[in-house]
């Protein structure tokens, strides 16, 4: 029995390190790829401010209050469920800092009760989002397997978290000791509370899935060209890094023969156009 437990504990530890590595590397890689991909033209969705501070204000409104989403007349339910879910998730993460810090900062202790409440809010918000995916005909139509997977993972995280708080309490000292052993790279034996293990595994699953899934919207939003560009194309020149290369490739590439002039067709050449259409003048 002890051997099996050790083996299981070892697996959990490996999973913990692996998931964190995949999460960190995956997200960084995604950001790198997206950052590297050029934005050839200015495409902000207007009305957009003409200066950077205005753009920052709009983005803050989007991130903090889901401003764009709230513009829709039929999105009040989604806004409510979505906003409370995200806020709840954020507060719950803050609350969990007590398991990763020693000594625990006083502000982390201050958000403990709020964090518990946020966990309950988050739990019901997920249920509401679930409910919406099946009751709204249009949303049901676009829902994919991946959307459900993520909802289920997060539901498991919230449900096991609340279970540990209110029903099956694990040995918190043991849990924190395990987490610290992971942080300081000399892993000890994992706590064998089944609810904790399920909670732990679902968080790992979420971390692994994060960079490959739609969860990447958390960082992707900040790179969205319709939101992060200032609306000043006439006063400030935006440059397309691949414009010259593409132009040269076309100009120097093979051109179709123009039957009228018997020359390679060059639409960018004013002289050719004159020769073709202004014969009467010459």
């Amino acid at each position: 029995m002890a051997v099996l437990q050790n083996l299981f504990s070892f697996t959990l530890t490996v999973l913990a390190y692996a998931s964190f590595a995949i999460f960190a590397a995956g997200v960084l890689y995604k950001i790198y790829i997206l950052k590297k991909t050029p934005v050839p033209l200015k495409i902000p969705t207007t009305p957009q401010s003409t200066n950077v501070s205005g753009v920052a204000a709009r983005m803050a409104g989007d991130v903090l209050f889901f401003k764009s989403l709230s513009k829709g007349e039929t999105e009040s339910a989604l806004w409510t469920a979505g906003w409370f879910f995200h806020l709840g998730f954020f507060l719950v993460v803050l609350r969990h800092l007590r398991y990763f810090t020693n000594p625990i900062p006083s502000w982390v202790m201050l958000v403990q009760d709020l964090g518990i409440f946020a966990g309950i809010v988050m739990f019901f918000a997920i249920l509401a989002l679930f409910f919406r995916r099946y009751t709204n005909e249009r949303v049901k139509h676009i829902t994919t397997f991946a959307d459900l997977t993520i909802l289920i993972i997060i539901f498991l995280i919230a449900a096991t978290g609340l279970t540990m708080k209110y029903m099956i309490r694990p040995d918190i000292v043991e849990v924190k000791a395990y987490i610290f052993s992971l942080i300081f790279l000399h892993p000890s034996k994992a706590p064998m509370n089944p609810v904790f293990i399920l909670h732990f595994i679902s968080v790992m699953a979420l971390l692994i899935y994060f960079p490959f899934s739609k969860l990447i919207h958390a960082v992707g939003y900040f790179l969205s060209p319709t939101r992060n560009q200032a609306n000043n194309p006439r006063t400030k020149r935006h440059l397309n890094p691949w414009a010259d290369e593409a132009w040269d490739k076309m100009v120097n590439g093979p051109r179709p023969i123009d039957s009228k002039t018997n020359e390679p067709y060059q639409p960018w050449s004013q002289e050719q156009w004159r020769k073709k259409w202004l014969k009467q003048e010459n």
Partner: protein
Amino acid sequence: MAETGKLEAKPVSFEDLIKWEKIKYEAPELTGKIETPCIKENASLSYKAQLYKGKDAIARLGYPTEGLIPNWKEKFLEKMDEMLKKYRSVRLFMDICVRCGACTNKCHYYLGTGDPNNMPVARAELMRKIYRRYFTPQGKLLGKKLTNSEDLTEEMLALWYTYFYQCSECRRCSVYCPYGIDTAEITMAAREIMNSIGIVQKYMHEIVDKAQYIGNNLGMIPDAVRNAIEFVETDLQEQTGLDIKIPIDQKGAEILFVTPSADFFASPHIESLYGYAKVFHQAGISWTMSTYASEGGNFGLFVHNYNNMKIINKRIWDASRELGVKRVVGGECGHMWRVLSSYSNTLNGPFDWLNPKYSIPQHICEFTLDLINKGALKLDKSANDEFTVTFHDSCQVARGMEMGGTASGQYEIPRAVIKACVNKFVDMPENTIKEKTFCCGAGQGLLGDDMLPIRVKGAMPRMQAVKVVKDSHGVNFLALICAICKAQMSKMFPTYGYPMEEVGGIHQLVSRAIVFGAKEGI
């Protein structure tokens, strides 16, 4: 019996899948309410755009001329990879959609047809299905079911052709999307991918070629342009009894004026051309039009083909340099303005030979309002007393640019010009104007007669909004600032049972109200 079964199972060729057929259309009854319809699977599957068969023109645009190329799958993925690497918008919008459904009832084509593939998210999913299958690790490893992806098949390609040509790239969905996902960017990329394998839509590519090859969207050779403008000039002089000139190719003029070529003789577009000429005449500023840059519009915007767009745009700046003008002013047009104001500087800038005191380029509404504010234009509002006017914000103007250097000038400046010309102005309901404006239903390459059935459905939300103000305020004039809106609405008004004459440009109103004579300002 077995034999009939065999006949039915006969595979359908790709040509049949995307074949254009004439479909009877009928305008829905107007209620004044824009209601979200229930999903009707495949409701608009049969509305296809016509394919382009003009081989010379397709070759000139740099696309394969013989229809779908044999190794299309390979080329398709190659081009898609290129799009993903060249446009962050495309790559990012593939990744970050959470399918929240906020956009599902925002598209006028979905509101008009109820076809689920016309929900912006579902339209984008058509591309995401291919993206997940061929460009993500999970799509390559796990099955199609788990990742909700799709193999590249002729059926899938037919869906692409159908639904990416039922998007007018109006960007209404990007307003409501919490991440600003712009379906227009995805549609543009999809169209370019299809072009590169030889599936070229007729209406818009015929025009892109004409604009490059001949110089304007209507394919008028320079002499024809000159004749048309001279005709307008004579008409104007007869109307007013004044010596109003429309100069052509005049070197050393202060202003080069570009406008969509439809303004030269289409109705109601031409009424606005009268207005522009009268404004320039009364302001006493020397101006000229150009036979080389005889087109303001730029259909190159509608696909992600940077060079084709740049070539069309280049004409304007080449002409302005050659004619030695100090300013470039553009007429009323939606997508033309998006390219001119938002893209020109990137495409062909910097414009150091122009006068930096004025915005480069300047919108005719900015120009006119500036004159009105300076007192250089005298307008008699009572000349338009027979009209109660409302204003339709063109999608590309409302959601794609700034005017007057302020974030919401594109809403205020045209309205200010209208209000200076008329006594009675009302706005349509709040959720159908400004940034939430509905597309006229024919933008971005869907204005062809082959697309009439879908145009009628797409115009429904705008027509409902018009009905609201018609019933409540007796509105009898819809003011527009876009050549495509003018063409579409002058067709849709009669279709929905309203007189065609109730549609017109803002400068049509200016033209009626302008008072000639001594200037009071300046």
